[in-house]
């Protein structure tokens, strides 16, 4: 794999699924998932903020794990299941994290929001009733430069209520 080196071509491309849809990404295998999503696949909901894993704006789920897309070269993604912010809602129905961010107005410019929503979704999957400390810890890799942090914590708490309510009501 490493033998191809930067700038080399992935002969047949890397096959993965993005939000359940099979896609093939060609071009240099050293390119990061973030650029593949934003440029090749036109899925611009995932944002660039730093390129070094420090801001969380590019967070996506890779095989269910929140991952900074700017840190993953596409050569590592053969067969991977990638979920992005565009895949969080079911049709028109927002997921609980999305709903809660809308309800609580937990953003200003909204540039950090997709990463936050993806992180919150993953947190609630793992821990349906997170404490304030759990929430803050989960969000620590994310920056909100607008300083909507207090609202974001509140939104995640609200999302857990919505999610648990949904579960009690059933699908």
């Amino acid at each position: 794999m490493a033998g191809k080196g930067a700038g080399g071509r992935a002969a047949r491309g890397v096959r993965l699924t993005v939000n359940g849809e099979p896609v093939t990404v060609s071009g240099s295998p050293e390119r990061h998932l973030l650029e593949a999503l934003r440029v090749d696949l036109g899925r611009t909901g995932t944002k660039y903020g730093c390129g070094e894993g420090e801001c969380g704006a590019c967070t996506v789920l890779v095989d269910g794990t929140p991952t900074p897309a700017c840190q993953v070269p596409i050569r590592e993604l053969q067969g991977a299941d990638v979920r992005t912010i565009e895949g969080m809602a079911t049709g028109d129905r927002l997921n609980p994290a999305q709903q809660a961010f809308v309800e609580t107005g937990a953003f200003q410019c909204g540039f950090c929001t997709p990463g936050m929503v993806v992180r919150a979704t993953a947190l609630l999957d793992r821990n349906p009733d997170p404490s304030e400390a759990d929430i803050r810890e989960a969000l620590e890799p994310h920056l909100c430069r607008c300083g909507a942090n207090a609202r974001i914590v509140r939104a995640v708490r609200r999302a857990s209520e919505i999610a648990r309510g949904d579960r009690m009501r059933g699908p």
Partner: protein
Amino acid sequence: MLPPRPKRPWDRTPPSERDYFDVLGEGLVVHRVPLRSKGPERGFSPPSAWIHIAPDGRIRAFTGKVEVGQGTRTALSLAVAEELRVPLERVELVMGDTDLCPWDMGTFGSRSMPDALPALREVAATARAALIERASMAAGGSGTPGEAVDGEVRPPGRSRGTPYAELVRGRREVVPVGPTPPLTRAEDWRVAGHPALDPHARDVVTGRRTFVSDLRLPAMHWGAILRPPRIGARLVRVDGARAEARPGVRFVREGEFAGVVAPSPFEARAALADVEAEWEESPQPREDEAEAFLRAHPRNGDGWEVRSDSDGDPDGILAHADRSIEVTYRTAYIAHVPLETRTAVAEWTGPRLTVWVGTQTPFRARDHVAEALGLAVEDVRVIVPYTGSGFGGKHGGDVSLAAARLARAAGAPVAVTFSREEEFRFGYFRPMALIDVRAAVNRDGRLAAWVFHNVNAGSAGLGSPYRVRDYRIDNELSVSPLPQGAYRSLAANTNNFAREVAIDELAGLAEIDPLAFRERNLEDERLLAVLRSAAERAGWSGWVRSAGRGHGLAVGLEKEGRVATVAEVSVGADRSVHVDRLVTAFEAGAIVHPENLRNQVEGAAMMAIGGALFESIHFRDGRILNPRLSQYRVPRFSDLPELDTILIDRKDLPPVGGGETPMIAVAPAIANAIFDASGIRRRALPLLVDGKLPRR
């Protein structure tokens, strides 16, 4: 992709000659025409606005301000909805499009509320009156006029009326705002001033909101800019042959500018690495000598204001005072770090250029690009889409110009997005500054003399709200070792830090509680009101003076807003500092969008923690040493204190800006709290060094 384009930008067309209806379709237009308006519109005031009501029910209002996350889109739309008596969702606000919007100096200095809001309210209120009049004319023109309710005009006593859409059908009518537009008093607001959600929030949480960096045009290419190795370096020789040998890559050089265009960002970066350049470098001031450098290199204003004011004989009093201070406060260069880096997309259509860019000054960017490229201003259109924050860091037209040059050479639309490192290295910073304060107090705890001089901070916030007869205040500007410019609340932050820490020091000398000391020396009732409400909410009870925990307070009066902050901090045995709670009381006249104002106050507090505790740009030989987020620490969730925000709604006063002033009392309140907790008086921002409180 391109929104409809008028023959000439409307701000550069006399009001009577604007082709409103060719562009927007038939309907009713109300515009606010500045008095004595001949050619292009200019200046802070009178600000302009216009509104168009279409026969399909569409309502579009136009302002030259931009939305970069501060929430003015919703706040201004609320005011329009209020005056037009329609729900918020009905109002489309067109912002920062230089072809369609009124000329505007830029979105900075908290001017959206004082400038854009009244203009928009006036055009909307006038439109309402015009619609009511049309309705009564249609009904024969006799009897009492109807009432505008929920997007229609209802005859007196009726529950159904004629929708606006119907009233404007077939018309091409322009109505100017008259001398007394029928504005709705804030006390009577039913839409503005009440809780509201951003109607476009769904787009934000689904990833559908299109920020500048998300724009994709057909055949769009990606640009990268050749960068000097350090500040002050000049391009001597450059060879792009190796870069151009790559498939689809174009090398561009125009004077000092050089860059590449490629089919993808990855290829653009790789091609840039192949450009061979030689630079002539020149010695640059070092960080450890920067303060002396600032003092030794005065500069003429070049647009920055210099102020001075004095009365009485402060030096005479200071010469004999037994309770006085003579200290220097310092602030470091800090970066804005907007989460979305600077981005522009440029597209040429023949000789005409359109640039989509995240800028706070679209009209200035237009002028800058036109001038640099030798174009007529009319041939350049700048559009500001949603932008991932600015904080004063996105002024000017550099990235627009780079995209325009590259797009012209490539013969295709080109996007240029700064990397985070470029954002640090090739933007500008909040200035490094020195503030010299000499002051004295009387035995009865009154300020006796006040001498306040700053070097390179700027003039905002120089004036003091404290009563004193003998004083001198002034500022000077310096040649800056690093590029410097605007920042959220710019000089008011710096000056307020120095003043509010000095006031605390003086309270200490006078042996009076800092709350009582401020109450004794302040005269502005509105400022006293926020001070008292913050102190009360925080349970202020004098200095704590217990090891490891403390609280401090500070006030600020800036751009007609009043703020008071009480900070509670803990100082660990390892000299780490955590801000546990920030209580902020803020008053900015009548509140238009309460939820957004609260969001702004909280955000300002959070952002201010960074500049207060740890943000600082380090440099050597003209190189930025910490140009990455892993090296330049900004506030994170672990820094988030309990935020307690009190908004004081003064419906009897005009609304003023809320994005900046809530920030200015935070750093001094924290500094004063650290003193309370540790006995260590810090006079420099950031207050911590390498994350710890220094021993002195």
